[in-house]
């Protein structure tokens, strides 16, 4: 069995850590990976960078900010490579159209601490 761990962090908390603390947290987290239990991980940029995409009447509707409704539930996620936000929202539109819901697009933090 594979599991995805969705990590909800307290907003702003990561930013208060020093580089050393972040490295330590990362090392601690990596220790979990012994025995290759972790096959991949990403850290997302802050919620302020989020954009939600939905499709209504064939039109793409975009809104600023993270998804914050309670009716829909997280059904999965993909990581994509895109030149910019327009490229990413294009992919999000296809996904949103298929599930008839909302796709939150958030840039990934590049692991420059490694």
């Amino acid at each position, binding site marked *: 069995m594979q599991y995805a761990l969705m990590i909800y962090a307290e907003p702003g908390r990561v930013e208060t850590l020093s580089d050393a603390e972040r490295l330590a947290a990362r090392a601690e987290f990596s220790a979990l990976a012994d025995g290759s239990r972790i096959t991949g991980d990403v850290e997302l*940029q*802050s919620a*302020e*960078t*989020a*954009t939600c995409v939905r499709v209504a009447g064939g*039109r*793409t*509707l*975009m*809104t*600023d*900010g993270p998804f914050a409704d309670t009716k829909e539930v997280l059904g999965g996620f993909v990581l994509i490579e*895109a*030149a*910019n*936000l*327009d490229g*990413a*929202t*294009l992919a999000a539109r296809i996904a949103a159209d298929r599930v008839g819901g909302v796709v939150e*697009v*958030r*840039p990934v933090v590049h692991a420059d601490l490694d």
Partner: protein
Amino acid sequence: MLASLVGFLGDFDKAEEAAQEAFAIAAERWPASGAPVNPGAWLVTTARNRAIDRIRRERTLAQKIHLLPVPEAVMDVMDEFDDTVIKDERLELIFTCCHPALPLEGQVALTLRAMGGLETAEIARAFLVSEETMKRRLSRAKAKIKQAGIPFAVPAAHLLPDRLDAVLAVLYLIYNEGYNGRVDLAAEAIRLGRVLAALMPDEPEAHGLLALMMIHHARRRARFCGEDLVLLEDQDRSLWDPAQIAAGQAVLDRAVALGGRGAYVFQAAIASLQTAEPIDWPQVAEMYRRLAELTGSAVVELNHAAALAQAGDPAAALHAVDRLDLDRYLYFHSTRGELLRRLGRSAEARAAYRQALGLATSTPERRFLTRRLEQFSASPDPTTPP
């Protein structure tokens, strides 16, 4: 200048910094050596070169700048800055500022700051917020552009209609802020509308919006009597600006010639028809009908019905109104009341006006509706226009 630099550097803050440096250098040199032949191009080139120097110094930043590798010898290429280059960059900047992934208030603030060159303090004053708040809005929007990777680009053809709608909505929002009394913003929105129409000469809706704003703006001096709003039919037409109405109508003609059948084109056509004396109400009703078809808006349907009544068919108008689901909307009930009154159905008319009065929130609205109700006890005349 800022547009050109932001397009080049892909970053608002760096562009502003570079522009400031270029101005400082100009202030130092020009008094002694005289201004260059083309001061604008000189400033842009100098600012670009300064920015490139800075990028070279801060090499880690280079990855974040979208223009790589750094071009050599921009220094001497003044010819590069002909109108078309700067035009394209301004258009890219408009689409970036009005990107729907930004909060609407951020889109508005960025557009005014970057395209209009208004100072942050001026924008803050226009929107009745503190300068601090406006600064936060701007820096948050700029940060999102950078972090989320919002591109400096005119969107691809298949995205253009939606994205152009977003740009037009921002300009119209700026205009409407001004329409409520702060005239500076209305004039600014018209200026931006002109820029957009010039940058996208084949887009009928860009011309449609410009025409709509110009025709409304031409009537601005007649719209207020002291603090009170004056309705179209009561406006003193001698206060209108006939030259601006004609200019707006010429822009509308261009939009229609381009095949424009969009929401802004229809609204501009309605505004244009309403400047005629007498007003061609059947034609106004037809425009509202097509606008309603396009927008599916019940409020537009209500306007369509009101125009039908003005065109002399209150029975058809009442039929149209009764199909609408606008029970919580004051003007739905007051329009019904007026139509019933004209059809001589006084008791029903009174009931409708009472319902409208129950929904009225402002004193002028209450005064108007109370007066209407009192008129029923006097002698009702079914032929009196509203």
